[in-house]
């Protein structure tokens, strides 16, 4: 029988180094946008050094409940600040039957910005009130 493929079981945590790990994660998505065609970078990204035709990653994290993990980088009345620390996402991995481990993706320091923060609606009969953050970053992602 062929060896079972190594696979990701789920997301264990996300942490900004030096902070507290958030584990109430519903989903995590990473888009690595390549420069197939000239990209016009809209104003929302202006000021973060993501230039036309540059590659960047768009991370979308949905939390099951509130978290303050990114609050230091989100400003209402001012420009958002760069994350001066690394962002580490940890995944639970299955590498064989009954054998599990973890994998981390580390997004390097001073390359990430929170660009969107969206609260779910808190109402009766709503199954979940999610909190979604979108982060863009560029530079190397380090797997380990």
């Amino acid at each position: 029988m062929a060896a079972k493929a190594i696979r990701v079981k789920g997301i264990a945590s996300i942490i900004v180094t030096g902070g507290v790990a958030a584990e109430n994660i519903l989903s995590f998505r990473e888009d690595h946008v390549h420069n197939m065609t000239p990209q016009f970078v809209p104003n929302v990204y202006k000021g973060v050094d993501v230039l036309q035709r540059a590659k960047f990653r768009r991370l979308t994290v949905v939390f099951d409940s509130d978290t303050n993990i990114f609050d230091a980088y989100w400003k209402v009345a001012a420009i958002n600040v760069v994350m001066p620390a690394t962002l580490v996402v940890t995944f639970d991995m299955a590498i064989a039957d009954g054998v599990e481990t973890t994998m981390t993706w580390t997004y390097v320091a001073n390359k990430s910005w929170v660009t969107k923060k969206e609260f779910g609606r808190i109402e009766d009969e709503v199954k979940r009130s999610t909190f979604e953050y979108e982060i863009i970053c560029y530079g190397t992602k380090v797997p380990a």
Partner: protein
Amino acid sequence: MAEVIYDRVKSVAIGTTAGASVTITNVLAFAYRIVTVEEGMVVPISVINDDNPSGVHQGHSYYEMLMVLDTDWLVDEGDATSIWAYGPTGVVVNNDGDFAIDEDGENGDIEYFVVTITEHDATETTLTFADGLAATEKTVWCMGETSEFSNEDGAPHQTVTYRFICLGDLI
């Protein structure tokens, strides 16, 4: 637009030649379609990674392919840093020593790209997008990567999807 999706993929071999390639087996699905811009009449893709490959003309059609993996690890590798697409532990995909994905610069063209499909009757079909010979150089590129993970109950798969483009005919 027609799209072909295979969910019984035996392997996808990627590299420089048949002898210098890796065989990726943790493939959940492979899909391809033919993209024809304005029915082949106007405005083609003209630039890929700042490179204007020969043979890309006005009205040039191309294949767009998706490879959906369980993870971006090389199968059977216990080391999470062994990721096929990136250097320095990834797979060299052309004679210039490039990798399929460059974090900041131009992606390398993939000179060997062969997909082996298991059909419904258990026969195997091979789709060769690039065969490692000179004629298929600079015709296949990786164009994007999307990773999707969910902790929701019932999430069937946690996937890493790579998008490719092929400017040549299937061999």
